[in-house]
């Protein structure tokens, strides 16, 4: 089948097959979706563990070069995934500094790449949120007797809604990117194949049913994430 031969009815056919695949719990589909979630959720967890303290400390500390650091961190939010993939590839490849770890083309390598991608997003948004809160809260918290460390934890909790949005934005970026995971993971079947790399491959092969099914799952995830952000904001 050649791509240029596809007609509307065939797309409709592919679409209904895709829905059947999803509802039937196709094992290939499930494997790819689960690996995607495992990689991206791990990356977001790591990015949060680094980004929250980094952003919070950056928000309330004063040191030479701080502004430059903040500009840099903000700029890194827009890092092109393929470039991150390339850099992590260079580090993890056989001749690279961490080559002996043998991580290239494993899910761990993909987690590392996505962590690099997401940490600036979580860190920069946390910095902005905590800095705004600090302006409002500093004198009050000092008056109540809070140490700076205590104040930081309080501010992170006070900013929880904005911070949750930052984390979900990070997850959205991780789960949707294709460049970094493709380069460091290699899109190996049953090993490092995730939703985005599958979609690229299956589309190229003309296997539209599976590509579409994965596309639907990805879009559903995006909608779910946005709904979660919207409703958590509503509640608080």
């Amino acid at each position, binding site marked *: 089948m050649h791509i240029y031969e596809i007609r509307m009815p065939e797309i409709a056919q592919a679409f209904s097959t895709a829905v059947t695949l999803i509802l039937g719990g196709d094992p290939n589909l499930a494997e790819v979706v689960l690996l995607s979630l495992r990689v991206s959720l791990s990356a977001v967890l790591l990015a949060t563990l680094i980004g929250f303290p980094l952003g919070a400390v950056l928000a309330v500390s004063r040191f030479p070069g701080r502004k430059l650091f903040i500009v840099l961190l903000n700029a890194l939010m827009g890092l092109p995934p393929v470039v991150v993939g390339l850099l992590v590839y260079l580090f993890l490849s056989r001749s690279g500094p961490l080559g002996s770890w043998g991580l290239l083309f494993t899910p761990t390598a993909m987690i590392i790449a996505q962590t690099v991608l997401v940490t600036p997003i979580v860190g920069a948004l946390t910095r902005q949120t905590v800095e705004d809160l600090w302006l409002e*809260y500093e*004198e*009050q918290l000092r*008056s*109540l*007797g*809070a140490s700076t460390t*205590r104040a930081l934890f309080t501010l992170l909790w*006070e900013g*929880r809604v904005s911070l949750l949005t930052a984390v979900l934005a990070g997850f959205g970026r991780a789960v949707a990117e294709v460049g970094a995971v493709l380069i460091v993971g290699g899109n190996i079947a049953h090993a490092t194949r995730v939703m985005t790399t599958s979609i690229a491959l299956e589309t190229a092969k003309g296997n539209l049913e599976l590509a579409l099914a994965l596309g639907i799952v990805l879009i559903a995830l995006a909608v779910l994430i946005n709904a979660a952000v919207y409703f958590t904001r509503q509640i608080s």
Partner: protein
Amino acid sequence: MRQSISRVKSASGLQPLALEQAAYVQRTTGPTILPLHLVGVCFEAAGQGLLQDLSFTLQGEGASVILGPNGAGKTLLLKLCHGVIEPTRGQRLWEGPDGARASQRQAMMFQRPVVLRRSVAANIAYALRLRKVPGSERGARIKQVLELTGLAPLAHRHARVLSGGEQQRLALARAWATQPEVLFLDEPTANLDPAATRAVEDLITTIRSSGVKIVMTTHDLGQARRLADEVLFLHRGHLIEQRRAESFFEQPATSEARAFIRGELLW
């Protein structure tokens, strides 16, 4: 003036129970941190001298009201006394026998208090945790102070959805719950309607009656007359008069104070 004072006193006298309970909130805890000495205190920002060479003493009785027009430096002075900002020059000395623990034995209500994004009761619990009040004691104290401030029905309400007057009372409750010896209040009723103002003033009177030293700012002459035992009149960063309230209002010594009391504009 005499009349307005007796009115407020009778208003708080309507709650003898509240006063009895207030004694529980402020248990006398031994040595005092007062008097507070300010010695040659100056504060500058962006090359401007906002407070100029202030020296005075606050003793441990009643309510000291810092009075003056907008921009006189009242808020700055209050924050300097409390210690959330430091003077450019000069010293702040807590000279009482317990002066070393001064920071734990004072509290402040800011003009725009920041209430935390949690329930009313949790806001007070937070302050008590920071002052290392044991968990077993916290519940009783929170209940107590919420009842005294009339906030008990709102205990589980989210603090950020309260009205301005209720947030102000919560801030006062939170400060009071820490059992301070000195309580700083910055324009405690700015932006409140007359009923809410009355409620907060009654509370301040109750707190003062329980033995807490009140140091507050206001630009409202009527409020100063109702609450002050002592007046510090501030004008353009200078302390112009510090006197007993009666003598300040009846025989102001300086032309600036006379003009202010007559309600003339002062710049």
